[in-house]
């Protein structure tokens, strides 16, 4: 397994990454008082860096409020980041806007969690899938109709779906419509924000299979955001674990699971219920809740819940550094410095 991973990363190093994110920050102003003055900032994403290679899936895991969705929205440039840079195929897209951004809307697409809310309920499936072509002014009516039929076939929906409305479909089928829309313009990178969280288990596996199949066929890169580590590990080449706006650990999926270093990753893994009654886990349960990102703890943001916290943890924040024995495995914890 290790050999395979090494050769994969060797190959990746020769290619240039499709996406480079450096020290990205997204701070939302918090308005307070009767004059709505900005006193504090919600540091949803606070200094995140990573690369995504062509055809690779980067998994992003964390609990609610850790900033994983905000990060996804910064990359699709639905938000304008406060600081840092996003480089897509050698072009800095951090601060561009309007017309300049339009070509990137083709290349970077998004799949949302709730397919009922992300599909316009007054439009037919045909209208929904036609819209990307209209916006980007691609092809004539005939071409667009042909493409829509192709798209439906790719995601496994009958072609008669064109004249139907989203409410006539089940959750899994609606997510297929959302996926069809996201691949309509042959994108290079798709940000999948909790695409299977709202679905039942038997449907979830169908959608995961479809996403993996599409990636192979069209050489897509994914940023796959989810809270379920088992799902993320299944689909991802590399995984980053986020806590309060920062990446605390990142590596290939196998090492994150088998050689987890950060105490947060360890407790996250131990908290997952295993569908095997013989393994009633002797688990490490974290105390307390995630602190507010408006007023994060000093030092290491995890020290308030960390079972291994030391004195230095509360006043010095750790840096994300590579492990000496394995450079792709990075961890941000004083225990490994």
């Amino acid at each position: 397994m290790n050999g395979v991973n090494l050769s994969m990363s060797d190959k990746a190093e020769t290619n240039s990454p499709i996406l480079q994110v450096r020290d990205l920050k997204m701070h939302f102003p918090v308005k307070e008082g009767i004059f709505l003055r900005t006193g504090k900032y919600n540091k949803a994403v606070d200094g995140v860096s990573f690369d995504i290679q062509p055809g690779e899936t980067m998994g992003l895991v964390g609990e609610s409020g850790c900033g994983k969705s905000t990060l996804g929205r910064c990359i699709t440039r639905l938000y304008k980041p406060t600081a840092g840079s996003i480089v897509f195929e050698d072009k800095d897209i951090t601060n561009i806007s309007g017309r300049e951004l339009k070509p990137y809307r083709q290349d970077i697409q998004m799949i949302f969690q709730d397919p009922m809310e992300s599909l316009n309920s007054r439009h037919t499936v045909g209208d929904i899938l036609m819209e990307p072509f209209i916006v980007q002014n691609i092809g004539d009516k005939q071409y667009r109709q042909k493409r829509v039929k192709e798209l439906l076939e790719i995601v496994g929906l009958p072609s008669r779906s064109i004249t139907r409305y989203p409410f006539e479909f089940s959750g899994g089928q609606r997510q297929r419509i959302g996926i069809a829309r996201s691949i309509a313009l042959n994108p290079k990178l798709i940000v999948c924000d909790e695409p299977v969280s709202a679905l039942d288990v038997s449907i979830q596996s169908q959608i995961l299979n479809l996403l993996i199949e599409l990636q192979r066929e069209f050489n897509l890169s994914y940023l796959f955001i989810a809270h379920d580590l088992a799902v993320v590990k299944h689909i991802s080449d590399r995984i980053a674990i986020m806590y309060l706006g920062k990446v605390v650990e990142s590596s290939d999926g196998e090492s994150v699971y088998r050689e987890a270093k950060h105490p947060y990753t360890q407790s996250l893994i131990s908290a997952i219920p295993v569908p095997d009654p013989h393994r009633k886990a002797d688990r490490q349960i974290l105390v307390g809740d995630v602190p507010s990102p408006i007023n994060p703890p000093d030092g290491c943001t995890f020290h308030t819940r960390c079972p291994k916290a030391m004195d230095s943890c509360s006043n010095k924040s750790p840096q994300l550094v590579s492990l000496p024995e394995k450079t792709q495995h990075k961890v941000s914890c004083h225990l490994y410095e």
Partner: protein
Amino acid sequence: MSDALLSVDNLITEFETDEGRVRAVDDISFSVQPGETLGIVGESGCGKSVTALSIMRLLPQPMGQIVGGEIKLNGEDLTKLKLSQMEKIRGNKIGMVFQEPMTALNPVHTVGRQLAEVLYLHKDISKDQALRECLEMLDKVGIPSPDVRMGEYPHQLSGGMRQRVVIAMALACQPSLLIADEPTTALDVTIQAQILELIKELQNDMGMAVMLITHDLGVIAETSNSVVVMYAGKVAEQGNVYEIFDNPSHPYTRGLLDSIPKLETVPKSELSTIEGMVPGLLDLPVGCRFENRCPRRKESCKAAPPPIEVIAGSHQVSCYEWSKSVNE
């Protein structure tokens, strides 16, 4: 079987809808022994929540009706009770925890007031005593500085804390049965682990039985003694937790277990799936309800619903082909 705390026999619950009558729960039977945890698992629309609401007699009125069967709590048939008698059971003998703690709590009352209400309703106690018991209860469910929290409103608490308050309310009168309907679905994994552990601790402490409803087979494996697998309003399979997980005999149970990505599976390998979709309750098939998705369906499965057969001990399955499923 006679010493069961709760026994549900041939329960049928129907809803009157604009499109016609639908049978959300169709002839299901199971029992809960004192002190044990029974897990009910199934996908959305399988009738697991309706089962819980039927037991609590909290079906939306007038659409939802129990049209057949018995629900016996310590031998007393709950379906025959008047509403006023039922009010003495709810919160007192059976406590309930819902999925979304924000909607289960009243946003305009303080935590303390809501908790005390349960005690006033079921016990003849003074204000001071109620206050003391509330503090004790909040402390028991692991809420830090309970005296401060008593005066706070639900929106001031985090999701996990709110669910702890709901659990405190459900257990305030020390019921013999706690029904928890997806109690951790809205919570993060680390908080889920906390809440499941809390329920387990309280169960050991107070000796109540728990009926846990969830879609997560992992949660079932970790918490339950017995399991009921439901599909489209019927029981597909039931038995103790080892029988179900070691020897899943209904193709649906097997399909569910196979389709979960596990941490051990090879990344990007194809997951097995259950093809197709759950049939709509308005046009249920005459025969086996899983027939349209079943990998081992036969022509004969379409004719009549399969009977419930005993495999061994408490392990029962409703499938014509179960023996083939086992041998594979």
